[in-house]
């Protein structure tokens, strides 16, 4: 187990470094002068030149990379052209919002996918199953941003029972900052008004993000369960007189879960990245939206930092998923015959 982790860690570092180089190169191929864009069209040329020197834009690419990497090691991602402050600050402000969103979204889609998948498998080929399958087709076909817009339409105008924009209603103050996750912080400080308010704001964007993966995984789980139901070891277990609840909960569920977990992990890891459109629509001040704006405005430092953060999170989630899959499937964990 340990050697597996170490190996993955090495791989991961390599990948992240490679990623940073890739993004660095892409960002620098940009047409347009970042210094000029930062200061605006009316700034005097000497100011632009000075800024260029400051940003090391006059030096060669490898040197620029070196400066940037050095900064990263110190924890300094440079300054953002847009917000005009340290990218660090921006990240610290916006990252928790997206984390919170991704977390709730993940919890939602995992639990609902399991419930729906189990339900569909239990009554497979009956109307419940067909209903879920029909919903799944639609749910998978609708991109997250479309779902988001529809939810906005529904709850913003038709049936305004849930707040739609932002993280908190203006009158509710933000809870004391511990983790930056409003729901968690308000729970920890016993601030229940803030908790419910934050949760209410979270629900719609989380739902929009969760829709695609939810139905995808529900279908997958159903197929896996139904597939394994017909397997010999299940009828053998029945033949030994094991109670059916034991067979379903233990003998059927565990092997059926394995292919689903990997896909769930992948989708979970992508949640943060896919959040940018949802954040835009619901006016959610998250790092995804921040990154998107950075890309549109060619805010190099911000772009590199955001991509790096995403890459690291993606990598961490992938490792966790790999560990979970290995713990579920002894064939992966232990390899070939002893």
């Amino acid at each position, binding site marked *: 187990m340990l050697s597996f982790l170490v190996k993955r860690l090495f791989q991961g570092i390599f990948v992240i470094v490679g990623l940073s180089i*890739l993004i660095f190169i892409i960002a620098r191929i940009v047409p347009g002068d970042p210094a000029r864009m930062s200061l605006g069209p009316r700034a005097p040329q000497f100011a632009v030149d000075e800024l260029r020197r400051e940003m090391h834009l006059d030096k060669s690419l490898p040197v620029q990379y070196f400066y940037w990497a050095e900064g990263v090691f110190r924890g300094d991602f440079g300054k953002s052209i847009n917000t005009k402050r340290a990218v660090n600050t921006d990240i610290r402000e916006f990252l928790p919002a997206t984390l919170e969103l991704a977390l709730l979204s993940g919890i939602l889609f995992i639990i609902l996918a399991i419930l729906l998948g189990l339900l569909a498998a239990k009554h497979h080929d009956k109307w419940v199953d067909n209903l879920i399958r029909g919903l799944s087709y639609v749910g*998978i076909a609708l991109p997250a941003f479309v779902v988001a817009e529809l939810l906005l339409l529904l709850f913003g105008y038709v049936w305004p029972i849930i707040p739609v924009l932002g993280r908190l209603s203006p009158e509710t103050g933000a809870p004391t900052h511990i983790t930056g996750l409003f729901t968690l912080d308000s729970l920890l400080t016993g601030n229940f008004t803030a908790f419910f308010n934050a949760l209410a704001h979270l629900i719609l964007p989380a739902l929009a993000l969760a829709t695609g993966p939810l139905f995808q995984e529900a279908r997958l789980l159903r197929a896996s369960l139904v597939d394994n139901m017909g397997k010999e070891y299940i009828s053998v277990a029945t033949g030994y007189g094991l109670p059916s609840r034991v067979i379903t909960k233990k003998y059927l569920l565990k092997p059926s879960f394995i292919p689903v977990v990997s896909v769930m992990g992948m989708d979970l890891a992508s949640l943060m990245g896919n959040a940018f459109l949802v954040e835009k629509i619901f006016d959610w001040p998250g790092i995804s939206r921040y990154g998107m704006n950075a890309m549109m405005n060619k805010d190099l430092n911000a772009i590199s930092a955001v991509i790096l953060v995403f890459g690291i999170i993606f990598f961490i989630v992938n490792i966790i998923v790999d560990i979970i899959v290995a713990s579920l499937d002894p064939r992966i964990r232990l390899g070939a015959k002893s």
Partner: protein
Amino acid sequence: MTKAQFKENTHLYWYKFSRNKLSVVGLCIVLLSVFFALFAEVATPYPQHVKAFVDYSQAGLAPSKAFICGTDIYGRDIFTRLIFSFRGALLMTVIVLSISVPVGVFLGLIAGYNHGTWVDIVIMRTVDVFLALPSIILAMAIAAVLEPGMKSSMIAVTAMWWPWYTRQVYGMASSLRNEYFVKNAELIGASRFHILFREILPNCLSSIFTKMALDVGWVILIGAALSFVGLGEQPPTPGFGQMISEGARYMPDLWWMTIFPALAIAFIILGFNFFGDGIRDMLERGR
């Protein structure tokens, strides 16, 4: 293959494909989409509305007999613009897949066949780097740093699509290279080209095609996401995501500006998903 064999194969393929009625529905939708993409000019009532066109007297009209899906704030017929959007979506799909798949497969073959050598390591680590990011982010990053437009979107999506095929083919190629038929070919001195393309590749083809069929829906989805943020078709050319983005601003009053494009996206992606499922059923070995 003789003519009779070909006919029988076709029958078998069709049988497998059409077992699921939804796949046939998907096929119809796909054909319809292709038709729209090709013949939008003649299939729509107001083809001029996709060019620079403004008619404020007709702006913001609810769906009616004259304008089936209503008009937008510039007075353009939404229905016509939707039909034309099929063109962009399908064009992107064709271009993205026709470039990224061969490239990805080729690299995967090489990497898999040379499993364990530096060729393998270089290629697969590059793949890892590309796949280290959620797809949309990477596509956006690339598209955003290029000039906003259809061309850039296509480049961006192509650039981030090929690694998936490389990974898939790599897995198959590295296990196939130990099979006897490959070893035999090596022994009799077959060229590398022959081994890769005549021995290994044909065994991977059906899963490659299956993946392609299932990917179409995803490409369209990403394309829509990109056009939503303005990185796809540039105005006045319409695109699905772009139309939703525009329409969102005028919700709920001009609801038709958002709802119909949303339905259209669901329609096309659903159709291609069904079609993809059918292709997968068709290519699956055994019954």
